[in-house]
């Protein structure tokens, strides 16, 4: 093991938490394979790795959610066996999950109270909540109901809830995935402060620049094994990525000579009430995607992207026939199937359950979107060889790795399933492609393949609309970028002028000068 000396290790002292040969086995699969990690007080320790590398398993073990198959944990030098998260919390281990567990219809204070042991009165607890949130610069109004809050505010609740237990050791699972760059900066200030107070922090992320900036030590996992512990500040983003992936990542090459052709997908003044009470109301969203270009839509999750996708795909119909125009034809009242027949294709954010039926075979999942606009169905009968051929072609063109020819969708890894889904649509050569979070939770190699395929599709003259929370991804592939905020869409910026700062402000709801100028010019 190439174990370089971690920064800040003081000889003679014991680490706060130590894992020794920690192993977790699921059947024959080793999710964690003999992992040794030392966590020291006053340090922010990054845990890096691709999806499926074993990060979640490791932190769930440390938090007492799962029991290790082999190996042990030592807390302040003494052996520790956790019966569950409650015991972990009582020892001073706190965790902020990536997916929040908050009740939308309860207030901030009620949500916090639910997570505590309930020994103090609600009034005392509220006062303490106010105090903790003030001290750490995490402003919260205890009386507001959660559904009214932004994602950043919801995360603050989770952090404050953990801090109220005064933990010695804090685990954060991809905390910036849902934040604007500005909100992320605020979070880093809080983390620095917690570190200065002598607490230890384990920070899970795959954003390498962030890790270089914030963390003192980094442990890198790959395929369930620890590959290295290093000082991220002495590494480059590229060298960290190499350790994560175990090889070089292909560069995405922009195609040259893409000129804006005629618009192939147009939305005019789309306003739509949400289906569910906590959804986002789309307000006068307008956009135009021309053949040969990629339009990116940035924004923090929950600002109307899901509603926009549903309106584009036809899962929800538009309020007017001419509000959605595909290939020059009004399509507002056409359903998904009819829009596919017009040459449009869609890739939703959720791979399992939306983009595919998890327990169905890939050939059946090929049929899922292929039944309308291809020769897979003849007179009501399924042409099984045709569906299998489509799977084979997708497998070949997009390097989908699977155990057998036609497995169930759920058995594929996230990256391979996403390559299958994107490939399934692109192989039909759609004139219009709408794709949401194309590389969310996908390993770096698969992400590069998918982005390249989107660029190549646009280069062949198709109109591509990419909805993504990943600004780096949009910077890499989009020609123009617009931002969604509270159900409104900003006018698009050319990729060259769309700096992180400008986009970040728009994602936070600012109305910059450009927008005003565009509005006047329009």
């Amino acid at each position, binding site marked *: 093991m190439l174990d370089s000396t971690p920064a800040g290790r003081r000889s003679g002292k014991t680490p706060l938490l130590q894992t020794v040969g920690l192993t977790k086995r699921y*059947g024959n699969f080793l999710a964690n394979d003999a992992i040794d990690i030392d966590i020291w007080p006053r340090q922010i320790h990054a845990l890096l790795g691709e999806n499926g590398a074993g990060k979640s398993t490791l932190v769930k073990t440390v938090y007492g959610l799962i029991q290790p*198959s082999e190996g042990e944990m030592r807390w302040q030098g003494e052996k520790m066996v956790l019966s569950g998260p409650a015991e972990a919390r009582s020892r001073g281990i706190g965790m902020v999950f990536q997916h929040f567990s908050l009740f939308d219809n309860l207030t901030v204070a009620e949500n916090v109270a639910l997570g505590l042991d309930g020994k103090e009165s609600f009034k005392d607890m509220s006062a303490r909540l106010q105090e903790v949130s003030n001290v750490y610069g995490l402003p919260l109004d205890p009386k507001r109901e959660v559904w009214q809050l932004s994602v950043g505010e919801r995360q603050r609740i989770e952090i404050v809830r953990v801090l109220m237990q005064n933990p010695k050791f804090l685990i954060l699972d991809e905390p910036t995935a849902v934040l604007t760059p500005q909100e992320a900066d605020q979070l880093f200030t809080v983390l620095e402060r917690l570190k200065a107070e002598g607490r230890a922090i384990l920070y899970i992320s795959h954003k390498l620049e962030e890790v270089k900036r914030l963390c003192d030590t980094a442990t890198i996992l790959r395929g369930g094994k620890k590959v290295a512990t290093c000082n991220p500040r002495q590494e480059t983003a590229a060298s960290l990525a190499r350790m994560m992936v175990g090889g070089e990542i292909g560069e995405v090459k922009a195609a040259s000579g893409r000129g804006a052709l005629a618009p192939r997908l147009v939305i005019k003044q789309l306003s739509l009430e949400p289906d569910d009470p906590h959804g986002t109301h789309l307000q006068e969203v307008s956009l135009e995607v021309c053949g040969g270009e990629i339009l990116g839509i940035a924004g923090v999750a929950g600002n109307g992207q899901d509603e926009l996708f549903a309106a584009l795909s036809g*899962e929800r119909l538009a309020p007017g026939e001419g509000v959605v125009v595909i290939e020059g034809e009004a399509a507002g009242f056409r359903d998904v199937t009819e829009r596919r027949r017009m040459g449009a294709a869609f890739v939703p954010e959720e791979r399992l359950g939306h983009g595919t039926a998890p327990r169905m075979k890939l050939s059946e999942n090929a049929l899922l979107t292929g039944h*309308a606009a291809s020769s897979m*169905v003849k007179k*009501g009968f*399924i042409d099984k060889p045709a569906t299998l051929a489509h799977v084979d072609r997708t497998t070949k063109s997009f390097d989908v790795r699977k155990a057998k020819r036609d497995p169930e969708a759920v*058995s594929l890894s996230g990256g391979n399933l996403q390559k299958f889904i994107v490939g399934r649509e692109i192989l039909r050569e759609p004139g219009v492609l709408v794709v949401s979070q194309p590389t969310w939770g996908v390993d770096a190699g698969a992400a590069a393949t998918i982005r390249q395929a989107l660029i190549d599709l646009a280069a062949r003259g198709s109109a591509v609309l990419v909805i993504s929370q990943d600004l780096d991804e949009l910077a890499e592939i989009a020609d123009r970028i617009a931002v969604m905020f509270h159900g409104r869409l900003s006018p698009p910026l050319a990729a060259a002028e769309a700096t992180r700062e400008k986009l970040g402000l728009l994602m936070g709801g600012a109305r910059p000068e450009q927008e005003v100028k565009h509005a006047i010019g329009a």
Partner: protein
Amino acid sequence: MQLVLEKRAERSAVIAVASPLIAVALAVITFAILFAIMGKDPIRALYVYFVEPLTDSFTLQEIVVKATPLVMIAVGLALCYIANIWNIGAEGQFIVGAVCGSWLAVRTNGTDAGFWVLPAMLVMGTIGGALYGLIPAICRVYFGASEILTSLMLVYVANLGLDYMVRGPWRDPQGMNFPTTAAFDPAASIGTLFAGTGRMHAGSIIALVVVMLAAVLLGRMIMGFQIRLVGAAPRAARFSGFNANRLVLFTFAISGGLAGLAGIIEVAGPIGHLDPGVPSGYGFTAIIVAFLGRLNPVGILVAGLFLALTYIGGEGAQISLKVPLDLTKVFQGILLFYVLACDSLIVYRVRLLRTVRKSVPAHA
């Protein structure tokens, strides 16, 4: 030591086939224990129940006669259940089918109406059952009412409707005031296939055709794919462009129609007239048949024959062992319990876990 259920990476195809067999075995063992507790010889009881009926041509034909409505109804129910649509009211659709078809038999009774009567009765019974099945479907699609409750409650409505007809307008004038219609004319009856040896009738052939058509629909046709997709992943089905509401109406109409067809076949075949005893729980037993057959048409055929065996065996046991007929229902209940329990083995595997080892093993 600890027993844990561990999720499998893919569903096990072997267990998918074996699980109903395991369930049957467990149910038979439980049943044997039950007999032992009742003070009967379990081996002899199992022989009377499950083997004796197979040794005689008459009882073999009886098994087929019992299996015919069970299979036909269960195939329709399976289409619903695969799509996660819960039609519990097949019994009611069975009754309404029987009543609708009987209308023609009663009207033509004693006339010299020709061969067309029986086919027309079958069509009317099917349509009647389908329309009755559409009531809960429409309530769900347009008013959001739970189809589980509405379809079940409509069973009692159908039952009372039948009661009214046979006690009132359709009562046989020569029937000594018994609540029954006149015996159907030959033109309105389904004859037996092998006269003199048993009661097996042409309805069984219809049931076989239904099984084959359903197998083709589910395995080869886009409509069957749609049914499976809506059940497996509703959001993906919507993304696929399928209309879930239309499917609720379609599957309820099909399953209601098949239950109605089973009803009129039963009345025009083995029973020969309409009376309040026509509903005999086939619509409910068919639910067990559907699950025991893994919601697969061919599996349902096998399961239907097996459940029919328990009916015939139960009648034999009542005579030779002096046990109550309700024991058959107990067995069917035990069986459904095991079938559902064993299903979890398809997605999960059972593992014996020892508690976490104390020493840290050496590792490279």
